[in-house]
């Protein structure tokens, strides 16, 4: 039985990995058909993965309420928001607007989800400002170079900056299109080599962490 548990997943990963790597080099309609159907399947499987993610969140907050951990009251608020949205959403067939008229589901989306998520990240603007004042120090040569480049780019990217110092716009363009592009390209190459190496290790069964090794 353990042979099935251990070896079968590795065999599946190896076969599908080699098959779909080779598919790229085979223009024949048969290989195109394989690609079409499997990518369609991946969409459905991705839908199941979403269900998995959502149930795990459901699970964590249910435990929190059952165990009356501190802040369990807030989990009730979370559940109320979740169930309310689900009931109203399914009631309107998952549509925000039916022929131009916003449904209750659309109302929740426009007046609750959009402002909440937007503001959640807007508070970062304040924190950038306080960090700029308190901790963005040129404590080393590298940090000094970073801050100078940041100031030039900030000045060059806003109309007032280009109005006061017109050259800052051109310098920003040069920094972005040449210096920044070369660094990002080197980082992209480095990360891609890492990604290809990881994929190869997974296909040849050298790397098994994805099998939920750590999970059991």
């Amino acid at each position: 039985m353990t042979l099935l548990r251990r070896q079968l997943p590795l065999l599946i990963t190896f076969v599908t990995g080699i098959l779909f790597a080779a598919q790229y080099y085979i223009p024949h309609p048969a290989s195109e058909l394989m690609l079409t159907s499997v990518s369609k399947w991946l969409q459905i499987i991705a839908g199941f993965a979403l269900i998995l993610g959502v149930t795990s969140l459901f699970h964590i907050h249910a435990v929190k309420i059952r165990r009356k951990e501190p802040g369990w009251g807030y989990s009730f608020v979370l559940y109320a928001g979740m169930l309310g949205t689900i009931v109203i959403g399914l009631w309107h067939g998952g549509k925000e607007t039916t022929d131009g008229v916003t449904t209750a589901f659309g109302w929740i989306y426009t007046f609750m989800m959009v402002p909440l998520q937007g503001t959640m990240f807007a508070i970062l603007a304040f924190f950038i400002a306080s960090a700029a004042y308190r901790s963005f120090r040129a404590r080393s040569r590298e940090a000094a170079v970073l801050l100078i480049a940041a100031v030039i780019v900030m000045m060059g990217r806003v109309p007032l900056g280009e109005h006061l110092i017109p050259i800052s716009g051109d310098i920003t363009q040069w920094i972005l299109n040449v210096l920044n592009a070369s660094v990002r390209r080197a980082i992209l190459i480095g990360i891609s080599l890492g990604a290809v190496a990881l994929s190869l290790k997974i296909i040849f069964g050298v790397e098994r962490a994805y099998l939920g090794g750590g999970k059991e």
Partner: protein
Amino acid sequence: MPFEVIVGAWVATGLTLFILTFLYQDNPLFKLAEHLYVGVSVGYAIVKTYDTVAVRLIYDPMIEQGDWSLLIPLAIGALMLTRYVPKAAWMSRIAFAFVVGVGSGLAIPRVISSYILKQIEDTVRPLAFLATDGSMTFTYSLLNPASNLNAVVLLVGVVSVLFYFFFSVEHTGPGKAVARTGIIFLMIAFGAAFGYTVMARMSLLIGRLTDLIEYAQPQYGRATWWLLVITVATLIMFHARRKGTEPPQ
């Protein structure tokens, strides 16, 4: 102005101000809004997943158009859900093995084509041109990204940063100079990223304040003003009650 839009304006303004209270300090109003946000967004994800996956991608094509080949991904997907059954959890590994196997296979040639070959192709450029009269010319203009000087700078940047992330050779002698250049290039690129991120975060704040200004107008019943007063009052009340129980931070 339709009634539900006014109610919506009040709810949106209230939730926005509740979250902004985090700037003062972490307090129940923020926790309330934050958990509501997580709840609503998870609920929205569930509805959309059901509507798109269950109905449009599985039910309609399979039941109505009779495309029974979709039973295979359905089976694999169901296998994935066995992760929560301790005894059958190993079966979920088969589903993951399939998804990860296909994913890795698809990624390898595409990553090499788009992120390695294409990037090398654009970095390998002639460092000088031949003018019509046959003499070698070297274009200096910094502003034209395709000029020779920029091609040299680009090459130096890519080579030095690639060498900085080199771990098999000690950074000594000439290697030290190349690594130092690499670090300087890296810092300039991070500076540019810093500048852009500031613009991004400020835009978020501008977006929220624009809404608050709009909802402060009379046709929305001056929602922002009233709710501002209520929020500050509640904060003071929390602060007073907490001062009695816990030493100030």
